[in-house]
């Protein structure tokens, strides 16, 4: 009876429920190892399922053995029987299970193969954003971008990963496992997306003050739509026409760090802004790209992203910053 009352007490404990409810925050379709859209992540999820099922089974079997051992009448268990149990369940069994798991998991760790005609996407980790360069096979040259990765569905894509300052890690949980980005070294990650949609990737290696604010959008497109987008994007940036915002962009020296395709600005210090208007987020996956957010980011980047390298522009009035934001929103 006392035990039942204790259980009811635990169930009424608000802290227990609040802690469990916090876990619900992890449920989403954009950034989750459980909501997969790539072949490699599917494999990882299957393995996680097998491991979790195995772990639950082992716990259940151990609990049953403990109950049996505790409830056994005096003299029913022999020392020799116990030693045999330890030998089989403590040494031989685990060694066999681990060998089987190793044999099952190792082939999955082999890198996927990619052909010379497959799309190469080079991604550089920077504090605290992503420099992207699409390098399709054939003519047309590369397309530079930032903070957003677009890939075609059903085709192998080779990510060439490196970093410019410190070690970062490239992780699109629904697509594939994480891969370190190490300065001076290129790591290759071959992936294949299985369904179109909008997803999210993050930096998975602590890289400085705004590590937790370093994310990016992943957009998986149908093959023909992707090809059309790539062709269109390699042309000049539309919307880069004369306006108050464009004049301010020029006067404030924004082009000293940022590039806008089709204009004289081709600096590579900060993120490429050529197609800023079509991005879903601002500041590497952290804010909705509203005019107010963009204007606030220009005037004080460190307020949104501590440690960001971009200087603040407090001398701009809110109106002026909004004019630049309007210009940026028009770049497509």
């Amino acid at each position, binding site marked *: 009876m006392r035990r039942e009352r204790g259980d009811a007490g635990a169930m009424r404990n608000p802290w227990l429920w609040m802690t469990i409810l916090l876990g619900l925050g992890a449920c989403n379709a954009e950034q989750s190892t459980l909501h997969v859209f790539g072949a490699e992540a599917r494999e990882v999820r299957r393995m996680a399922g097998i491991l979790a099922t195995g772990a639950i089974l082992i716990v259940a079997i151990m609990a049953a053995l403990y109950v049996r051992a505790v409830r056994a009448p005096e003299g029913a268990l022999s*020392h020799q029987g116990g030693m045999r149990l330890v030998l089989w369940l403590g*040494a031989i069994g685990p*060694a066999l299970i*681990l*060998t089987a798991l*190793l*044999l099952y998991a*190792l*082939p999955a*760790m*082999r*890198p996927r193969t990619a052909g010379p005609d497959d799309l190469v996407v080079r991604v550089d980790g920077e504090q605290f954003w992503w420099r992207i360069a699409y390098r399709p096979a054939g003519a047309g040259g590369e397309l530079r971008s930032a903070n957003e990765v677009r890939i075609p569905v059903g085709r192998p894509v080779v990510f060439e990963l490196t970093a410019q300052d410190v070690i970062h890690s490239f992780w699109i949980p629904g697509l594939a496992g994480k891969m370190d980005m190490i300065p001076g070294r290129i*790591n290759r990650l071959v992936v294949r997306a299985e369904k179109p949609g909008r997803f999210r990737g993050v930096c998975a290696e602590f890289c400085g003050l705004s590590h937790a604010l370093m994310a990016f959008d992943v957009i998986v497109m149908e093959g023909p739509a992707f090809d059309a987008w790539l062709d269109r994007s390699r042309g000049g940036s539309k919307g880069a026409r004369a306006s108050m915002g464009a004049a301010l962009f020029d006067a404030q020296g924004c082009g000293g760090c940022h590039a806008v395709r089709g204009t004289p600005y081709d600096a590579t210090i900060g993120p490429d802004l050529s197609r800023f208007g079509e991005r879903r987020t601002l500041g590497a996956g952290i804010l909705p790209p509203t005019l107010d957010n963009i204007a606030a980011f220009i005037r004080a980047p460190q307020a949104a992203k501590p440690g960001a390298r971009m200087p603040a522009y407090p001398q701009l009035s809110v109106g002026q910053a909004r004019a630049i934001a309007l210009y940026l929103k028009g770049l497509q």
Partner: protein
Amino acid sequence: MSERRKWHEGLRVTLWTLIVPPAIWAGHFLLSYLWAAISCAKAGRFATFPTLFVIGTALALTLIALSGWVAWVKARMPGDPPPHEESNEIDRLRFLAKSTLLLAGLSFVGVLFTALPVVFLRDCL
């Protein structure tokens, strides 16, 4: 038959034979790393099936299994149950035999777990 019994009865378990299985494990561990490093540095890639390495692994496993077998034969000597902690000849021998047997088991699994990644992973990263 009697010849064979004589052959292994001549073998003894000592403090020296105790370290044979872990020493083979250590040697094989070194071989695995050298194999991977030399293949990647000199050939630039892994063989699809590293025959020589697999032969080396089979040899290491055989030697460990052999020393485990010798220890097992010696450990079956009739007597008291463990712990074999008396300061006399028979307990010393039983202790060494049991320890060698356990170390051989551990080393066998250790060699196997070190070798499998070398055989299965074929990239030089």
